[in-house]
């Protein structure tokens, strides 16, 4: 049976370049970057080279990059630090959106318990925040605007440059969770007036367990972990040297091939949309144009997402869904609800996220197995029966 990995928004395969770059640091180059002898300094130089690579990819300075364990840590850190700075000035208002990743939403919920006020902006039917809403929401109390670069479920890309401009003119810190965007679309933190940015290595062919926080020079970043001089004394703990080396290589490779990758991957994605849209009672989630190159998100009425993805799994296709049953809770994903989908429609969601390693054959295979699975599930679905009855009534 064919194996098709179409869940690149969840994680990606480690690239050959990354693997080769990491290997020496798993074997002979095991020195501690904090050690002063030259064996340790080799590891130190490797970490600093990666820091420069990450900075270059984002248009930042080397000393503005802090390595973390991943995107969630970077998000938690950024929000905590910005809140602390706000609190010192007596500003306890934060602006965000309804469809952020839980690393943001749950940190904001924790801050709310500590007395912060949070405005969660609408993202409308197309899954894109309105810059005017951001501007209107800013008050004298606002200490931070945090809005994701691109959504992890529906892939919609936010007007980050415009939001950056507004925040800069109002003197409010601007953080963006760019976990889904880095390595896939062009980012320049200076040009876009981004003060803080979170990224995660395994979303673009580095390994799991490594990420980074960009924090503009001049912003006092609160210490996250005490006990050592690593990461300018802000985050103690011996560095994940192999992971960091891989992150540097991955971000350099991806940035060098940004345009050709986007062209290739979005062409595959469009082929997928075109084929899957032929399935009746289906809809594309989120804006069709302003979205990540590899993101495909659709809802199919009358079927439930978990069943759909498990049946795809039986055919060798790795996919994802925002149904309640896959989240382990009652409600379908907050992202799908935030764009106004009804519960019963959101339960039938399917996310396929393509990457550079996918091929046309992969897409054609998905388009071959998907329609019969949906048909089979609809055949045994009383909900589908109800939908058909309703339609027959309307047409009568």
């Amino acid at each position, binding site marked *: 049976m064919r194996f098709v990995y179409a869940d690149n928004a969840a994680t990606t395969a480690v690239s050959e370049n990354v693997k080769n770059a990491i290997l020496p640091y798993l074997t002979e180059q095991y020195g501690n970057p904090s050690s002063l002898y030259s064996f340790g300094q080799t590891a130190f130089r490797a970490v600093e080279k990666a820091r420069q690579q990450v900075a270059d990819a984002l248009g930042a300075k080397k000393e503005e990059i802090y390595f973390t364990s991943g995107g969630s840590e970077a998000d938690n850190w950024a929000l905590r630090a910005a809140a602390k700075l706000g609190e010192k000035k007596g500003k306890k208002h934060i602006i965000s959106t309804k469809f952020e990743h839980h690393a943001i939403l749950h940190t904001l919920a924790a801050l709310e318990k500590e007395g912060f006020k949070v405005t969660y902006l609408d993202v409308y039917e197309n899954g894109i925040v309105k810059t005017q809403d951001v501007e209107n929401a800013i008050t004298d109390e606002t200490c931070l605007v945090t809005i994701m670069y691109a959504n992890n479920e529906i892939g919609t890309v936010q007007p980050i440059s415009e939001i950056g401009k507004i925040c800069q003119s109002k003197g409010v810190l601007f953080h963006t969770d760019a976990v889904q965007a880095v390595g896939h679309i062009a980012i320049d933190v200076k040009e876009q007036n981004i003060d803080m940015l979170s990224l995660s290595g395994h979303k673009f062919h580095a390994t799991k367990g490594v990420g980074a926080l960009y924090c503009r020079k001049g912003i006092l970043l609160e210490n996250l972990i005490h006990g050592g001089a690593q990461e300018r004394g802000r985050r103690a703990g011996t560095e994940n040297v192999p992971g960091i080396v891989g992150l540097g290589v991955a971000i350099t490779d991806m940035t060098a091939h940004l345009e050709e990758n986007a062209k290739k991957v979005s062409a595959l994605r469009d082929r997928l949309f075109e084929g899957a849209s032929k399935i009746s009672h289906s809809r594309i989630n989120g804006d069709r144009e302003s979205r990540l190159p590899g993101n495909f998100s659709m809802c199919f009425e*009358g*079927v*439930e997402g*978990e*069943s759909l993805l*498990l049946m795809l799994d*039986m055919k060798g296709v790795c996919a994802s869904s925002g*149904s*309640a*049953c*896959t989240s*382990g*809770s*009652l409600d*379908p994903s907050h992202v799908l609800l935030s764009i106004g989908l*009804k*519960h*019963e429609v959101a*339960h039938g969601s399917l996310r396929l996220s393509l990457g550079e390693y996918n091929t046309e054959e992969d897409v054609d295979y998905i388009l071959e197995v998907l329609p019969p699975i949906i048909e089979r599930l609809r055949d*045994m*679905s*009383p*909900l*589908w*029966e*109800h939908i058909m009855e309703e339609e027959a009534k309307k047409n009568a």
Partner: protein
Amino acid sequence: MEYSEKVMEHFANPHNVGVIEDANGVGEIGNAKCGDIMKMYLKIENDIIVDVKFKTYGCASAIATSSIATDLIKGQPISEALKLTNKAVVEALDGLPAVKIHCSVLAEQAIKAAIADYYTRQGLDPELYVGKLDDCCDLHDHH
């Protein structure tokens, strides 16, 4: 969260899927908002369930519980089918993840709803035989 082999087996190849055209007891429980609906069709002769079929909209465990529950009551007298508990359904599937227990309750309730419909069609008060049925979304409290 992981499903047992038994659950995956019943999900991949569910037993008794479909409709009984001349069913004399039909029950539907759950709603679309919650993400699961089960519809049971019974053919009852002389108080024996001679045939049973189902249609289910929902996750893998909802489909698997429907499948095994129909297996368990097929050929049984009504009195036995009414004794089927969600616990027995869970055991027959070699367990369900905690967040999916409500699916087994749904299967138990769907069978009861179909039997209640049978009694109603016979001109009898179903509550005397089947008792009160739970509302679907309350079932989720079993999480």
